[in-house]
């Protein structure tokens, strides 16, 4: 079953067309990697799906609804959670509160001003559980903005996965992590997205071929190939335009 589909989506910034007609279909449970050179439009594509930007033309469907011009929070509530390439956390709040906030809506609290968070046992346990998963339980009371970079990346991931959304979109989740940290993060991503749909932008080809069961190659705002990993590896056009150097250098 297709959970997310893009139909001839374009995005212009002023005169420049950054996304030039992208069509994609993502199946339920799929681990879908989007790769491509810098500036290809991968992050822009994420912003379009998650509602940060409106599309210039085309449509995006989540299950049976069109979501292309919905607000980010509406799309999130449908079950699409995401992380950002550039760390995007709640800097003055502590780590625990960052994650707990990410759990609030999906736990049904909405805009409540009558629940006292200290008393929400289940919510607080869930929060601690996420902190354990991302290895930040010892930093629970630390201001997020003062964390070391790698820990901020872990928190970035934690905020995205906390609510257990159906579709999880990760924009370069391990960028800037050391090798061992990246390994841990990939393990976590694999565990957390079991049975869920994952869309991931990643430059590290080892990770991509390790995690993904489908890969789309975005070059200059267009998907030039979207296929199973082994076929992408063999694809001559992809080799030429992008993969060649990266694979050999990795």
């Amino acid at each position, binding site marked *: 079953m297709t959970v997310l589909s893009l139909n001839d989506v374009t995005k212009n910034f002023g005169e420049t067309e950054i996304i030039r007609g992208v069509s994609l279909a993502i199946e339920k449970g799929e681990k879908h990697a989007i790769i491509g050179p810098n500036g290809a439009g991968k992050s822009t594509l994420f912003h379009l799906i*998650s*509602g*940060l930007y409106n599309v210039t033309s085309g449509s995006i469907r989540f299950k049976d609804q069109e979501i292309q011009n919905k*607000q*980010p*929070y509406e799309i*999130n*509530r449908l079950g699409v*959670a*995401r992380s*950002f390439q550039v760390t*995007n*956390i*709640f*800097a*003055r*709040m502590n780590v625990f*509160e*960052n994650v*707990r*906030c*990410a759990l*609030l*809506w*999906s736990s049904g*609290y*909405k*805009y*409540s*001003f*009558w*629940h*006292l*968070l*200290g008393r929400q046992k289940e919510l607080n346990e869930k929060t601690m559980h996420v902190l354990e998963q991302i290895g930040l339980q*010892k*930093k629970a009371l630390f201001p997020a903005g003062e964390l*070391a970079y*790698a*820990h901020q990346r872990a928190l970035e991931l934690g*905020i995205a996965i*906390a*609510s257990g959304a159906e579709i999880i979109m990760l924009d370069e989740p391990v960028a800037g992590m*050391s090798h061992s940290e990246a390994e841990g993060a990939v393990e976590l991503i694999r565990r957390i997205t079991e049975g869920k749909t994952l869309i991931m932008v990643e430059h590290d080809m080892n990770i991509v071929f390790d995690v993904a069961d489908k890969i789309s190659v975005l070059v200059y705002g267009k998907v030039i190939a979207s296929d199973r990993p082994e076929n992408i590896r063999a694809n001559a056009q992809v080799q030429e335009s992008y993969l060649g150097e990266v694979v050999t250098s990795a």
Partner: protein
Amino acid sequence: MAILKKSAVWIGYLAALLALPQFFDSVLAVSIFNQMAIAIVFGLSYNMLLGQGGMLSFGHAVYFGLGGFLAVHALLMIEVETVYFSIIWIPLVGGFIGLLAALFIGTFSTHKAGTVFAMISLGIGELLAASSLIFVSFFGGEAGVSGDRTFGPPFFGIEWFQNLEIYYLAVAWVFIATVFMYLFTQTPAGKMANAVRDNPERAEFIGYSARKVRYITFCAAGLFAGVAGGLFALNYEFITEENLNAATSGRVLLSAYIGGLGYFIGPIVGAVILTLMNSLLSNYSDLWMLYLGIMFLLTVMFLPRGFAGFIMMHQLAWVRGKIKSLLVPYLLTGIPSLLFLISVVGLIELSHTDEAELYYFGLSFNSTAAMDFILIAIVALGSLLSIRRSLPQLRAAWEAANEIPESVDEESTS
């Protein structure tokens, strides 16, 4: 244990409020306490906006003033027996009006935080201040409106003739309001207000509309500002345009800032300091506004987290039991600092006075004699030199008290 500690803080707060008039019971003292009570609620409500929600408002007095005006009108209605209820509920009338105004104004002012919000708040403030001079029947023009709190059914025999009675009523409301504002910070909406303050973009990707979160905080702040306005009406029994104009809005910003925006108790500290300065200093010098401005500048420059932040800075040293080692260095720098401050203020006062003779700290100075200026200047200079000498000591003591031992240094950052 934690719960015990928390309730101890609350009981202490209530006890302190209740006990104040036991120690100072002059008419002046009680009137200052009443002002303090009003300022605490108003300041806390302002901090909901700025400290908690990241909305810089230049027009928060609108909700305070509207609440206050309606409260006075309610007093008038009680007086002519249009309505019949005890005046103890007047702060609720104020709160209700503050909430209504915020419910309406918030629909268009909370779309964005930052400059847009600040400008809208300024505009609304000006608009209301102007219209309060136009709609004279409601706002009473320059003279304002006045009422009388002694009508209506007595409350357990109390008829509210005395300011002290009003103070105890105010304490009840201040306590209730403080508890509720604190509890609000512990709710999903309250925590999301922090999140939206920090990062409105990300908040939208965890399911929350930043605008709606701001709107809720804005309305809550309006409600409590209105309660403060109601307390004002009860205390003074009159209210004028001045209570909703930009000057009042500016003062509450000042007070919250000086107290410390990042801390729940910040505005309480600020309210106490500002009220004391307002009412005591203004008795001694007509330059008190100047001193207030200087204090604000000094706070912004040297205590960016306000007085509450300054107190909290000592947490680490306190926990380690090293606070004592700071005492002597503090005194060594503090005493000359005080002396410097006193002499500078002396210079200002001496050059400002119209009289030939100025009494200052029990001494008599001649404002026409150059010698007296020079004398004070020497004291100022001397204390400044002394500060320069003692400051490195203080810095060293501070570092020693707050040093992080090697062993517990960041283990896991790698």
